[in-house]
Every structure is written in structure tokens, then in C-alpha cells.
């Protein structure tokens, strides 16, 4: 379980997140909406532990541990992983080696890459000249190898072509143990009860909802977070009247 309490975050001397409360229970996946520049990526980076995102007050708990000031790698070891939107290129580091590092040498890179149609990229330097869609698949491949319990996805559908959208969507669903994947004949309720993986997915379009069901929708607006039960409602509301009205209505309703 991830619990964020009254979090206040500063980036380059500017407050970018304030009064953030968030709770993702075991097995839950949340969608994160918000206009450009509202701080969605910052929230993910703060959870992952990037030191330039300075936590001024509040705390982040994961699996019962206070991780507010833990370094990135300790969070990763606790089971937090991230799919980046613009990851850096590391020259001389082959994608194959990167996947192996993610899987601590215990994964079959070929087999995993085959699942996401990425075999042809294994011997290329990680992220070097990758297109938007290729980056998404590379990031998913790394998460498949890493297999974290809480996965943070930064716009997993942006730049992905129609053909690969379903592949990306289904892969994320499988990673998050969603939509009947790997249920092995169990009842829906049982699958849900046994589900362990948690997800927080940034999306603008909501296309991902066609493949991944979500338990909650979160809207980040002007540095503050508000939540509703049904993420599709947010999409509909934002589409009709914009983020500001939508947030007013939501906070009014709650």
C-alpha cells in the first residue's frame, strides 16, 4: 500500500505540489489526470525519489515504511518502478544489458522482448534514437524484468501508434494483474482479492482505459489532488467543461 499524507514539494525554489493526499491500496490502479504543467510527472518523480523534488513537509509511506527521504534505489528495491516518458540515453549500454540489470540477471531477455515485439532493439544502446512508441515498449520491457509492486506510468500511450497501442495496453494490464490476465480460472472476486500490483498511470486521452480498468481517478490541478471513483467520469467532465469546472464540481460533490 502507498500512502501519501499532506505532501508539500518544492522544485527549483518553487512549490509545485501542496496538500497532496493519496492512498493506493494493494491491488489498486489509479488514473492520474491533469492539465499540462499541473505537476503529474512531478508527483511520480517525488514518489520515485528524485532528489531535486524536495519534500518540505508531509510523508510518503510504502508497505508500512516511511520512504519520504529514502534514495531512489532503496525505493526500487522495496518494489517501486517507473515507466518514463523521456528516459535518458546511456551510450554503450545495450538494451539487453539494461533488461538484465532490471531483472538482476535472472530473466530471459529474448523471451521478454518477444512478448512486446522488441527483440530487434536488444542490441541497440538503450534509448538511443528510439521513437516515442519504442521508448514506451522499452520502458515496459524493463518493468517486466524488474517486476515491481507499485508501477508509475508517465503517459504510457503517448507516441504509440494504433497497431502497438493494444500491445502496450495489454502489457500494462498484465503487469498490473488486470482484466482477467493470469486469472487461471479463478472467479473475478478471487482474482481481485489476490491482486497485489499497484499502479498509478498518467493519461491525457484515457485510451489506456480501454485496456486497463482502474479503481479510481485522480485529478491534479494547480498543485492539488482530488479524486473520484470512476475515472471515465473525469474524462467526460473535463471534455465537456474543462479541468477547472470539473475540479470545482468534484470537490463540491465530495
Amino acid at each position, binding site marked *: 500500500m502507498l500512502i501519501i499524507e499532506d505532501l508539500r514539494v518544492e522544485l527549483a525554489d518553487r512549490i509545485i505540489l501542496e496538500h497532496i493526499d493519496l492512498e493506493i491500496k494493494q491491488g489498486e490502479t489509479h488514473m492520474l489526470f491533469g492539465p499540462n504543467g499541473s505537476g503529474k510527472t512531478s508527483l511520480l518523480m517525488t514518489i520515485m525519489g*528524485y532528489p531535486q523534488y524536495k519534500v518540505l513537509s508531509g510523508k510518503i509511506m510504502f508497505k508500512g515504511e516511511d520512504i519520504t527521504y529514502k534514495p531512489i*534505489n532503496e525505493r*526500487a528495491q522495496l518494489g517501486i518502478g517507473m515507466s518514463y516518458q523521456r528516459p*535518458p540515453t*546511456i551510450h*554503450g549500454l545495450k538494451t539487453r544489458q539494461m533488461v538484465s*540489470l532490471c531483472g538482476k540477471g535472472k530473466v530471459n531477455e529474448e523471451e521478454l522482448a518477444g512478448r512486446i515485439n522488441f527483440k530487434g532493439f536488444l542490441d541497440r544502446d538503450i534509448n538511443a534514437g528510439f521513437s516515442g512508441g519504442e521508448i514506451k515498449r522499452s520502458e515496459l520491457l*524493463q518493468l517486466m524484468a524488474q517486476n515491481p509492486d507499485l508501477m508509475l506510468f508517465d503517459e504510457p500511450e503517448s507516441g504509440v501508434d494504433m497497431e502497438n497501442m493494444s500491445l502496450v495496453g495489454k502489457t500494462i494490464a498484465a503487469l498490473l494483474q488486470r482484466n482477467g490476465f493470469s486469472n487461471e480460472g479463478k472467479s473475478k472476486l478471487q482474482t481481485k482479492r489476490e491482486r497485489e500490483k499497484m499502479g498509478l498511470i498518467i493519461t491525457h486521452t484515457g485510451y489506456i482505459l480501454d485496456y486497463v480498468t482502474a479503481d479510481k481517478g485522480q485529478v491534479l490541478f494547480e498543485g492539488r489532488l482530488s479524486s473520484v471513483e470512476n475515472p471515465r467520469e473525469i474524462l467526460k467532465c473535463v471534455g465537456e467543461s474543462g479541468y477547472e469546472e470539473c475540479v470545482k464540481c468534484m470537490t463540491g460533490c465530495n
Partner: protein
Amino acid sequence: MYDRMQLKEKAEKARDKKAAIGPDIDLNEYTTAPVQHAYMADDELCHMPEQEQHLLSMTGIDVTKKERGGTYFQKDTQVIHCHTRQDGIEVIPITKALEKYDWIGEYYWKLASVDTDKYTAAAELDLHDGYVIRALPGSKSIYPVQACLYLDKEGLQQNVHNIIIAEEGSELHIITGCASSPHMKTGLHVGVSEFFIKKNARVSFTMIHNFAEKMVVRPRSVARVEEGGLFLNNYICMKPVKSLQMYPTTYLVGRDAVARFYSIIVGSPGSEYDLGSRIFLKEPGCRAEIIARSISNGGNVMNRGHLIGDAPDIKAHLECRGLLINGGIIDAIPELTAHVEGVEMSHEAAVGKIAQEEIAYLMSRGLSQDEATAVIVRGFLSVDIPGLPPQLKAEIDKAIEESDKDVM
């Protein structure tokens, strides 16, 4: 034909001539007196002290000679092993070649000038030995020939002259390791090398240096590549050295001749490196590439490179990247000179430190900061070298792997 007397006279005049670049070295601080070492048979090579074997193995020298086409081993001033086991390849000590074969006169000091500076002069006036490696026309070397220049005597100035000849259509791979014994502190290595790569011949030359911290190294190399020939030159130095200065020159004199130079340097504290490559492209269709990677964790690294386009339709590129890890200085001075229209020449140089973003990315996959740094450094140093036999690629990887501990 050559006149040894004339060469000696020329050398004598350059006895005190300072080098064009690099710190000047007082040769009086070193001794050049011959050091006697017994010749070693095959099994004796394998029974060298473990520490020495390890040192040699770090420079790519395999004492079992299993995957080597020939071996030349010089300790201080003396040849202690010289053997070839592949048809079409000759390995001869140069002193013997000068004594016995007239043809050596067509090569000896024909590319390098004996009066270049005090180091070339010393190599003529006080020549100890060196190797002549010759691939006969059309011969293909399956395994690389290995050459080792080993220093054991404290304070020695080792003067070496090497000649590499690849006859028409031949293919030759050489790995040469220069090392000094573990107890050694100071010494000077002077190495003149002349490469003759004839029509359609292919030569790869991989040099790994593993010297003592107070060693001074002054290689002086010149290569000539004829039509359709290929010269692939790799230089790796991951260990500290007091001062290393070299600026090898290659002349591409025939159509479609190709030269590619790769260098990987790790500059340790107290070490000074000044190195570069100079390539003249003299005929249409010639190609040249210089790729340099240097890391400094406290040393001074000067990277030079000069491409000279003398004919149309040539293509040349120079790439120099430097990474500062823990202080030190990296200079990059790339030069391009075009003398005619229709040349395509470019260079790219970048010096920086490890990007925090890359470290954080790897840490978010579970690596510690140190592990992440090591991965990035290893990636930085791993250059794809096309045309290199797998055994040599493995030797380079091994040298890089081994250096990781020193770099961090």
C-alpha cells in the same frame, strides 16, 4: 638500400632535439646498458611467476600461446622468446633482420625520420631490439600475433624499433602489450614503429599499455596504407603512467585506403597523457576515422587529432569524447584540414561529467549509485570496433573490465 652510417650521423645531430610536443625528458636520468636475460622455451613461458603472468594477461599476452599465431617477447633489452606457428607469417627480431636480410633496408627508417627528436635518435644510436612482423602475400592470419615489450630493470631506457609489413592481399592481426614488472618504478620506453600495408592488405594493431606509475612512454609510429588497404589501430591505456606522448601519423597513399584509430584512455591522478592521431588522405576514395574516449579521475589528458584531406571524394571523421569523474583535466583539440574541393570531413568533441539523470535512471531500476556509475563508465568506454577478431575484442573488454575497480 640504406646506409647505417648515414642514419647514425643524422641521429647524432638530433641527440638532444626536443620533441615538438609533450614534456621534455632528460635522457641522462636513464640507463641504456644492455640487460642480460636468458631465452625462454615454451614451457618456461608458462612457468613464469603468477604475478607476471597476470600482468601480461592484462595486456592481452597469452603465455600458453594457444590462440596466437606467433609470439615476440622482449624483456628489457633482450629478446627472450620469438616464435611463429603460422604459415605465411614471419616474426623476426629486428637486430637479426638488420644483420641477415638486405630487404629490411627498404623499410628501416623509411617512414619515420631518425632525426624527428631525441627519442627517434636514441632508438637508432642505442637500439636494443624490436620485432619485424611480416605477412606474406595473400596470407591470412587466423590468430593474432602477440608481441610483448616488458620492462624489468629499474631506471632503464628501453629503445625499440618495430616494423610491420603486410604484403599484398594479406590479413594480419597483432596484439602488443607493453608492461613493466610489479617491483619497477621508473623507466622510459621508446618505441619506433613503421607499418607498411600494401595493396588490399588488412592490418589490425591493438596495443595495451600497463606500465608502472613513474614510467615515461614515447612511441613514435608512422604507417603507410596502399590502395584498398585497411589499417585498424586500437590503443588502450587504463593504468597510471607518469607521462605518455604520441602522435602517430598515417598516410593513405592509394585509392580506397582506410584507416581507423580507436583509443581508450583512463587518466589517473599524477598521470599526463598527450596523444592523438594524424591521418593524411591522399587519394580519392580514402576513408579515415578517429574515435577517442578518455576518462579522467584526476589525470591530465590531452586529446589531439588531425585529419588532412588532400584528394577529392575522401571521407573523414573525428570523434572525441571525454568524461571527468573525479577532477583532472581533459583537453580536446580536433583539427581538420582540406586542401581540395569535394572532401567530406567532420569532427565532434564533447567533454563532460556523468549525467545525474542517467545515474538516477539506473538507480530507479535498483542499482546503487556506485553500480550505476560503473555501468555508465563501462558503457562510455565500450566502443564498437568493426573488423576486430573476437579474441582481440575479448582482450579489450577484459582490460576495460579490470580497470573498473581502479576508475571508481
